[in-house]
């Protein structure tokens, strides 16, 4: 049977192996790019070994703490689907095609990959660029507008912020002013073509085994810092105030463009944050709290 030529440009590592239809099922631009670049190789039904996800994240420079958060989250988000498919044998896997509609599917994102790929929404996202580049400030503006979508609760806003920040922190390149940005071409490569930005690809260096690895490590603190930065820019958010409290607690000065150290819970979709506990009994001042 002839496989229709996909409209998404495939690299030689993935040519024809994953169809356009299946790529469109992946709602996260980073995961979709990892698949398209051949660093993730889902089987026909979308099952990916978490060890491969862990390795792929290592290769693009995401270091230990956020990598653990992401792999744990991936497993949690599609646990039921995988269990139905593979039963106990599915442990240690997640289904990359089953993320849409999972517990982490949310509104308030950029909508560029909603239902596959949306050029109009990509044009909307890149319209926020300044001098052809998108940095934290521009992503914050885009995220604020995206979060105004009807039906977006705070949950969706939080996830969207982290998603965009992770893209910037991992794939962005540092400009003369020291700040990381993505060019409009970079954003197009990630969202439309599911390929690494040219500048990111240029700094990939081969390992002894012939694979590639990013020369820049994006550790927890850097990714976290970006999330906090974006959250805090949205003054008046719960996240912003929570992190202000954290910074106040350790005596740091928190400027509007300075960042703190938490945040990666739901980055790079999917991640699996702990669920809130149920309500406890009434607390009344003067009585022993529960």
């Amino acid at each position, binding site marked *: 049977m002839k496989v229709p030529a996909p409209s998404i440009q495939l690299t030689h590592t993935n040519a024809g192996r994953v169809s356009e239809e299946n790529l469109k099922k992946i709602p996260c631009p980073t995961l979709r790019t990892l698949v398209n670049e051949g660093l993730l190789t889902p089987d026909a039904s979308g099952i990916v070994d978490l060890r491969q996800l862990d390795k792929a994240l290592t290769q693009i420079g995401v270091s230990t703490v956020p990598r653990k958060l992401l792999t744990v989250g991936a497993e949690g988000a599609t646990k039921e689907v995988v269990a139905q498919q593979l039963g106990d044998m599915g442990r240690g896997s997640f289904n990359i095609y089953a993320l849409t509609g999972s517990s982490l599917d949310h509104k308030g994102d950029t909508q560029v990959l909603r239902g596959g790929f949306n050029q109009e929404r990509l044009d909307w996202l890149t319209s926020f660029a300044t001098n052809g580049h998108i940095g934290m400030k521009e992503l914050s503006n885009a995220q604020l507008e995206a979060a105004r979508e009807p039906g977006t*609760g705070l949950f969706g806003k939080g996830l969207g912020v982290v998603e965009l920040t992770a893209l910037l922190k991992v794939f962005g390149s540092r400009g003369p002013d020291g700040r990381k940005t993505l060019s409009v071409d970079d954003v197009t490569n990630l969202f439309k073509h599911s390929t690494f930005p040219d500048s990111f690809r240029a700094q990939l260096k081969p390992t002894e085994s012939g694979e590639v690895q990013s020369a820049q490590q994006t550790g927890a603190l850097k990714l976290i810092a970006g999330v906090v930065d974006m959250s805090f820019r949205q003054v*008046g958010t719960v996240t912003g105030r*929570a992190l202000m409290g954290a910074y106040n607690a350790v005596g740091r000065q928190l400027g509007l463009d300075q960042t703190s150290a938490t945040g990666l819970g739901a980055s790079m979709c999917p991640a699996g944050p702990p669920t809130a506990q149920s*309500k406890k009994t009434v607390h009344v001042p003067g009585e022993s709290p529960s």
Partner: protein
Amino acid sequence: MQHAGLRLDPPPDFVVDQVMFSFKGQPAAAGDPRVLQKQTAIRPSLIVHRRDVGEHAALEVLAGEVTAELVTSVPGLSELASEEMRFADGAAGMMVSFSFALEEVGTARQYHALRKDGGVLTTLTLTVDKLALTDTVKERWLSVLASAVKHGDGGLQ
């Protein structure tokens, strides 16, 4: 209008949309054993934020959204709790609390207390030293939160 050492004359058709102010407690004394051991000593702080959310937003739903945002943006947060509370003027409120997981703030506990007066949501974010949270100390801190009562009509103006 004047507030906190600033006087401002906004256009007459401008209305206050939200307000936020932040308090900090005293830093740990130099003789605090944790400072001597170069461990992080937690400085308490209180952030008060008020904004118009409309008459129809239920406090429980707002508290749920607060909880959801916190769990997605503060990775590894632990000892998460949400409970009803009552303010000193008898108003019903909700409180969400958790402990930070990160090493440098790992001994901090944070409380988010919410109350709604008409269409105005007040959120009080209190960050304190978890290691010092005896029952008595915790009661004192919670009383600080409960002391937030409506003044006048409770509006933002």
